[in-house]
């Protein structure tokens, strides 16, 4: 099976394309075909993973070439894949969570007449994401990178009849383009400096063959790409708008898988980042800023999906931060990525289940007391909640703890900020829980909350179980050990406080956050409408406006560009068109003038021939004999 691991890409790709071209007859079974394709990919991935486990440690990497993609002079790119411990984890995450979300979507999209198309896009997304993580060449990776971008665009704008969804899709696409420019430039730079774009070759030779400035440039360009895809500051603005897409999309693409591609890229390019300390620091700074910004946004949003999206930003900030710490953090970045994939997908699907019961209302101020109305959703969501805030024993506890620990190993201030983030996370998640499930009901008229069908709750239960148990991966340092062939040995810094002491401190901070939120939101009844901007603190206002990210983009980029286009349009209309039209008019005048000898009289034609002949003969004689 290891030699056939590329089938995990082919199966959903074929299924996705097939579903797109299949006519109306496909509507009845299209969703089943899509789900089965995803499940088949998962089974293939699982078998391959088990076989990889069975191999000796130093042999856990299977590379292969499907065909030569580009061969032009010295530029040679193979359609090459590599199945190693890192990509194996991703294959499992993408296909596993992906399959659960496919199953969930059968119920969620049951009443949508374009359901077959939805599953086609989901399949295409899975294929593209797997291409991304299996690629053994940056150019092939870029292919998947663009593929997930396209799938994300199509899915965010799936309900294209809503102008807000169409606009959100466009925004996501454009902001991702900015990041993609960074990726493209990085690949070009690799080729110019190292003569190859193979991931293995680049990471092995960058330290020896390229100067540190080149490595730094490569690192920063890749970071730009990662920021776009992973919604990190300064390219974060698209993620909250992307919640316009159907909720399973938010769960799969904008929480569990695609948005973590940036983290994957940084970890995969560890050779480049290890050779470029400046770029690493930049990664840490980006991660830290996003961590706090996302948490801030999460505290202020009343839209349940946007609150979760802020949380996603923040959690990816954690992963970035860890990835920026170098070998000390790579394994933990991936560990948190996996556990986050479980619990965030769980909570997004839970949110979708809530919306399903609340007639697609997303405003938490209209929720409340759903604990009784939707017991399964509440229970699974609650487990996800405990996991994300880092309740001892749950998966998030282990993964976040390790990152904070590693951050303290890097610097006290970085560690402190990460610790603060944990507290804020506890605050906004508790706020969300209280407003949605435990506070008195504030339902609008004609809303009758009910539990979702079995096809939606079963995936919730599975994901909840994974959220709880995901922590086992770290027992005995398994994940560090597993990833060692890819990211190198993880060094442990000796901290002033022992590891268990650290855990207690983190748990204490989390407890404070929970307590604060609990007291704030249970002391007085929650208003059905949000207080006006003027009545809330500066910080809340900033959070509500997503830290003014849109305003910044608007001022710095959109408006200057618009002015520039106006100037260019003016120049084009007056100068260029004026010249062209003027020229055309003059030619037309000349044409009218030249046709005047065309009188229609044979005599004048004959005269023209006679004069022409005389001129021809006389000119010949004159020129030659003179």
């Amino acid at each position, binding site marked *: 099976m290891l030699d056939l691991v590329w089938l995990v890409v082919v199966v959903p790709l074929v299924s996705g394309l097939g579903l797109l071209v299949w006519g109306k007859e496909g509507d009845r079974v299209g969703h089943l075909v899509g789900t089965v394709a995803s499940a088949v990919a998962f089974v293939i991935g699982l078998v391959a993973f088990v076989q990889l486990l069975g191999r000796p440690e130093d042999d856990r990497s299977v590379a292969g070439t499907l065909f030569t993609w580009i061969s032009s002079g010295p530029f040679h790119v193979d359609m090459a894949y590599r199945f190693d411990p890192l990509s194996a984890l991703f294959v499992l995450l993408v296909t596993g969570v992906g399959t659960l979300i496919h199953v969930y979507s059968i119920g969620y999209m049951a009443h949508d007449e374009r359901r077959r198309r939805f599953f086609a896009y989901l399949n295409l997304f899975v294929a593209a994401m797997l291409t991304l993580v299996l690629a053994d060449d940056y150019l092939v990776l870029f292919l998947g990178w663009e593929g997930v971008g396209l799938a994300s665009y199509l899915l965010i704008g799936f309900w294209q009849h809503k102008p807000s969804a169409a606009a959100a899709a466009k925004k996501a696409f454009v902001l991702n383009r900015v990041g993609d420019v960074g990726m493209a430039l990085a690949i070009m730079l690799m080729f110019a400096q190292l003569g190859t774009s193979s991931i293995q070759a680049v990471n092995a030779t960058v330290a020896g063959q390229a100067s540190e400035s080149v490595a730094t440039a490569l690192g920063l360009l890749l970071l730009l790409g990662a920021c776009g895809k992973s919604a990190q500051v300064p390219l974060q603005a698209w993620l909250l708008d992307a919640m316009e897409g159907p909720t399973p999309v938010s769960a799969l693409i904008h929480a569990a898988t695609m948005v973590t591609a940036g983290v994957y890229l940084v970890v995969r390019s560890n050779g480049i980042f290890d050779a470029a300390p400046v770029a690493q620091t930049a990664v840490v700074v980006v991660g830290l800023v996003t961590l706090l910004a996302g948490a801030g946004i999460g505290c202020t949003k009343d839209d349940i999906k946007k609150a979760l999206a802020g949380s996603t930003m923040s959690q990816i900030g954690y992963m970035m931060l860890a990835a920026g710490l170098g070998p000390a953090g790579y394994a933990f970045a991936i560990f948190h990525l996996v556990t986050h994939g479980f619990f965030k997908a769980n909570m997004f699907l839970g949110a979708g289940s809530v919306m399903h019961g609340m007639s697609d209302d997303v405003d938490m101020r209209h929720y409340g007391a759903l604990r009784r109305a939707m017991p399964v959703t509440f229970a699974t969501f609650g487990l996800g909640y405990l996991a994300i805030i880092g309740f001892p024993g749950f998966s998030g506890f282990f993964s976040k703890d390790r990152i904070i620990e590693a951050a303290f190993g890097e610097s006290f201030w970085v560690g402190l900020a990460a610790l603060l983030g944990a507290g804020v996370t506890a605050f906004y998640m508790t706020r969300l829980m209280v407003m949605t499930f435990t506070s008195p009901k504030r339902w609008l008229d004609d809303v009758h909350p009910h539990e979702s069908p079995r096809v939606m709750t079963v995936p919730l239960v599975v994901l909840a179980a994974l959220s709880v148990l995901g922590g086992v991966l770290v027992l005995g340092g398994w994940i560090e050990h597993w990833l060692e062939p890819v990211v190198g040995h993880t060094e442990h810094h000796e901290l002033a406080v022992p590891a268990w002491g650290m855990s207690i401190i983190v748990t204490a901070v989390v407890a404070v956050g929970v307590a604060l939120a609990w007291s704030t939101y249970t002391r007085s009844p929650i208003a059905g409408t949000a207080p006006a901007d003027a009545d809330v603190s500066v910080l809340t206002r900033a959070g509500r406006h997503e830290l003014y990210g849109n305003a910044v983009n608007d001022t710095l980029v959109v408006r200057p560009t618009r002015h520039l286009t106006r100037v260019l349009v003016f120049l084009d209309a007056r100068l260029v068109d004026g010249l062209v039209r003027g020229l*055309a008019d003059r*030619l*037309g005048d*000349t*044409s*009218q003038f*030249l*046709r005047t*000898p*065309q009188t*229609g009289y*044979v005599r*004048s*034609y*004959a005269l*023209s*021939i006679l*004069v*022409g*002949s005389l001129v*021809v*003969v006389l*000119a*010949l*004689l004159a*020129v*030659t*004999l003179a």
Partner: protein
Amino acid sequence: MATLLLADRPDIAAPTIEWSLLSPLLVVAGVAMVAVLVETFWPRRTRFTAQAVLAGLGLLAALLDTVRVYVSLDRVDGDVVGRGTPVAEGAVTVDGPGVLTWGLLLVFALLSLALFAERRLDGGLSAFTGRAVDPPGSAGEAEATRLRLEHTETFPLLLFALAGMMLFASANDLVTMFVGLEVMSLPLYLLCGLARRRRLVSQEASLKYFLLGAFSSVFFLYGVALAYGYAGSFRLADIDTAVTSRTGGEHLLLAAIGLISVGMLFKVGAVPFHQWTPDVYQGAPTPVTAFMAAGTKAAAFVAFMRVLFVAFGGASWDWRPLLWVVALLTMVVGSLVAIAQTDVKRMLAYSSVAHAGFLLVGLAGAYVADSERITSVSGLLFYLGVYGVSSIGAFAVVTVVRDAGGETTHLSRWAGLGKESPFLAGSFALFMLSFAGIPLTGGFIGKWSVFSAAWSGGYGALVVAGVLTSAVAAYFYVRVIVLMFFTDPVGDGPTVALPSVLTTVVIAAAAAGTMVLGILPGPVLDLAQHAGTFVR
């Protein structure tokens, strides 16, 4: 007595005729004569079909024969490689370029024949008048239409004209060339006046063409006489010998070159001898226009090239500047005046003038060196092929766009044709793009090949002028495309008559040819290169 007579008999050797090499020409002429007999004896009811089938079979046979002849040509090694040999006591040369031109002419004739034979477009009658003697609009004309009379003489006329063209393109002495010229022209004069619709315009065109054609033939003939006075022979090779040895009498030589050129330039429609073109193209029945545009141009250009390169090759520094100026004038006037045209056929006529200019650029370049690069001969042959195919296709489209009064050639009536008939408008757009020389059409490769020949011949400035005028010409070609696809129709919009399979095949074949020559020009370019130079 008998012995005396025998002894006194002057010793006349029978001329040797290489029948086998000349057979394609003879087949066409022979079928034409048979067609005259058919005209006389075949019952009227089925005569039209019989004539069309006979002509078609004759043309096919001649085409196959041409292929056989081309393959059998012997290689002649000189300064430049050639193929073939003079035949019929030196009156005709069967050589690579000549036989290739035969092939082109036969293909053009086959395509045109299909248009000649089209009867579905005009209520079961051909595009030709029923009884030419009736004055337009008379009671006799109405009666002829009622009786469903048709002139089937058009088929033998087509074949005679074709035979003339073939002879014209491969004549090896000036008298034979003149004979070819006239055999080609006379049937065309007649054909031009036979339109079923708008007969007055058609007859006017015919008369104009005849008068001006005769006028220009006189110049040609005068030039031939002067050439004989200079060299003492009509043979192109003999004239060449006289020119290269500079026997004296420069005045005679230059005047001969000038006057012969005038005759040729008239036939190809070069400025300032082009004025007949729009009037005749517009007035003639469209199938005839199609045949004329493609065939006359090809035959005349090859004959012109043969005279200049073979007979006057030694004096090329005298005639090249002349062609330089005429080419420039022709391109500029043709392209510019086309902009002001409102009639499709007139626009195509000016377009044909402009194309004569582009072809003259390649001719003026006079690049004949034997190298890997494209020579003037092969460049022109390729261009003529592409231009002919696209032209016939374009005129075929014109025959299909109709209203109650016959073809609607006013451009304003073509607005919105793309909605009415995407296939038709798409084909026409393809021909326009090819005329404009847009890449991936045959026209681009054609322009490239004549321009590259001119460039190799040292006429870079003329090439630059040619490219600039192509840009101007693109304007009116693209304007038609815009009109067809992006303009709302006026009133009821254009109507497209449903043609029979004949016209459909012509349009489809022309479109396919235009595209294939643009995308895969290699084999045909190789063929044109392989033809080599003229054999004297």
